[in-house]
């Protein structure tokens, strides 16, 4: 009987993190991509460490931060804060812990207690530490955004095929870097195994995230085929 109960109760809390509708907003171009239309509180949203990852993290923080949420970035002494401000992040609510040292896990856990969004980078953590931090985020209703590999994340975002506009031999040459076309691919729970993707300008004009409206189809090897699948 107890085994039955265990089985019935077991998977439920893990299955639907943030199902109570508490979703932190993200910019419109990313909202269509993310399950739930934003960053669901209590989830872990990993950002793969490819080219463009930093801009993608800033774009994820921007909308919630501007709306009054607190964000923290741990282990990134080289974060471009001017770019963060241009992306729309409110710097007065962006706490920076550039050098957490050996206390990375403790610092992350402390920030998950008080902040809404916590970006953690720096070094690869053990599986047990990852599980602990993810559990802490779930319990506190914060969003954990690891930058780099994070097996077990609820959702993983990857920035691919970045192509800068404005410099080079192209027709849109304006003499300086201006915008970048990227394809952001999403994999994870509640999404079809192949994942889904969206074409974005990251950064767009003036540093903010935008939809890539005139992106030529050849730039993206796999167009958005399975958006409805999730």
């Amino acid at each position, binding site marked *: 009987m107890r085994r039955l109960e265990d089985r019935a109760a077991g998977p439920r809390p893990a299955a639907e993190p943030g199902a109570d509708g508490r979703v932190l907003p993200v910019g419109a171009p990313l909202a269509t991509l993310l399950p739930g239309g934003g960053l669901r509180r209590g989830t872990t949203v990993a950002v793969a460490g490819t*080219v*463009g*990852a*930093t*801009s993608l993290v*800033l774009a994820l923080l921007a909308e919630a931060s501007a709306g*009054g*949420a*607190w964000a923290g970035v741990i282990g990134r*002494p*080289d*974060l*471009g*804060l*001017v*770019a*963060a*401000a*241009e992306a729309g992040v409110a*710097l*007065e*609510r*962006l*706490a*920076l*812990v*550039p*050098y*957490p*040292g050996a*206390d990375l896990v*403790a*610092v992350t856990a*402390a*920030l998950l*207690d*008080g*902040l*809404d969004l916590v970006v953690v980078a720096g070094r690869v953590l053990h599986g047990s530490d990852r599980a602990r931090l993810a559990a802490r985020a779930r319990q506190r209703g914060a969003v954990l955004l690891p930058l780099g590999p994070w097996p077990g994340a609820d959702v993983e975002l990857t920035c691919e*095929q*970045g*192509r*800068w506009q*404005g*410099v*080079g*031999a192209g027709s849109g*040459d304006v*003499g*300086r*870097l*201006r*915008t*970048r076309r990227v394809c952001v691919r999403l994999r994870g729970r509640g999404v079809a195994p192949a994942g889904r993707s969206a074409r974005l300008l990251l*950064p767009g*004009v*003036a*540093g903010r995230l935008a939809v890539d409206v005139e992106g030529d189809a050849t730039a993206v090897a796999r167009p958005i085929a399975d958006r409805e699948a999730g």
Partner: protein
Amino acid sequence: MTVPVRVLALWSPDWPVTAAARAAHLTPDRPAAVVVANRVLACSAVARAAGVRRGLRRREAQARCPELVVLDRDADRDARMFEPVVEAVEELAPGVEVIRPGLLALPVQGPAGYFGGELAAAERLVDQVAGCAGVECQAGIAEGLFAAVLAARRGVAVAPGDAPAFLAPLEVEELDREPEVDRSELVGLLRRLGLRSLGAFGALAASDVASRFGADAVLAHRLARGLDPRPPVRRWPPAELAVELELDPPVDRVDAAAFAARTLAQRLHGVLAAHGLSCTRLGVGARTTSGEELHRVWRCAEPLTPSGTADRVRWQLDSWLVRGGRGAVDRLQLVPEETVGAGALQLGLWGDVGEADERAGRALVRVQALLGPEAVATAVLTGGREPAERVRLVPWGDDRDEAASRVPAASGGAAGRASGSPVREPPPPWPGRLPAPSPAVVPPDPLPADLCDAAGDPVHLATPDLLTAAPQTLAVDGGPPRDVHGWAGPWPVAQRWWAPDGVAGSRLQVLRADGAAFLLFARADRWEVAGVYD
């Protein structure tokens, strides 16, 4: 209409300078000034004799008085250094209230009766402070705190009943002397209306003042007429408003005391808010492990905010602990000695506005306890051209506005404004700044880069805005060279060419074939990575 009690105010002129000079072990004959945001906040008498004035720019002050010693402001230190003065006065007279470091007040009735006359009492107290604490101060006696403080600035005793007559010829600027209250707008308005003296302002009907100038002007109007600032319907707080905290283990370090102060202030304000009150006079009590009871009263011009309360408790504990000899503190008590209706100090409408901020603040303080106070920061954008120099990191808990108004030395022309000015001017333009997007990665130390042309020879600048050859490969930080897909620039920049630490060089955006884009900076024929467009 109640007549306020007669108050004796003791005022030590230029306290920030006195405290700072004592901390720096300067002799009193050295001219000194405390400078905040490039403006003189306070200066010593010697400096004033040389022409230094409050509000001058630092450079101008130094021009008038080249041997001027420039000191930093430190509110904690000011409070700590003032404690001996308070103790010296307390030896002779009870009921001392600290208004702010450098100014204290006490009811004159008791000492006057004991020493045989108000003037004798004032003289005795000034001697006592000079003898025990080694601080010069001036005394003033008048009805009501406001008049007494003004009398102390002039070193006079106003006869009973003469306070309105004493105030009448004084200028309306006297209303704006308290650093915690900003009445500059009201004072400016009154001057423009031709009301130049307190007497002229006081002659207006109270109802007219209330209907035209707002609540704070009513208070100022009462002050100008020599009345108690608050209408007589003052409420005496019931005893259960006092909050207590047992400290186990006893606290003997300042940082631990600050933590306790914050907790207790939070609780006090919760209790007060539940009663719809805010506190204007705060009693801070502590019991040491040796059983000694310490108590000090702080009075404020404005109802205290939670952080204002925490500050005062921290200053008080700081001075008790640092001065030593008292031992550790094992109980802390806050008593709101005088309260007013919360009115102006209403919490957010839903009660939880600011709760997220408080929660975040607590988490950040915890991390500071773990890693040290400098380890947690928020960023402030300031003037500058390069991505790295446009950002200033402010340790959590420090004043962001102050940091923002401290324009970097490289600015040259941009004015360092006095902090706390209510209207922030828009930042000045920085010609030569690269437009958005800015690099998302800015290495704390620039990485070396090798830029080569098709023949494999290094690319240099022929002139500041011309490359010797078209770049073909780029290697960053000793990595393998990668093909260059495109580049833009170079854009020359020359900053502070007149100073030895001046910077002259050119910036170049390089796009590699693998999609990575870099912002390079050429300095003396060497390329370094100033930013990565990640």
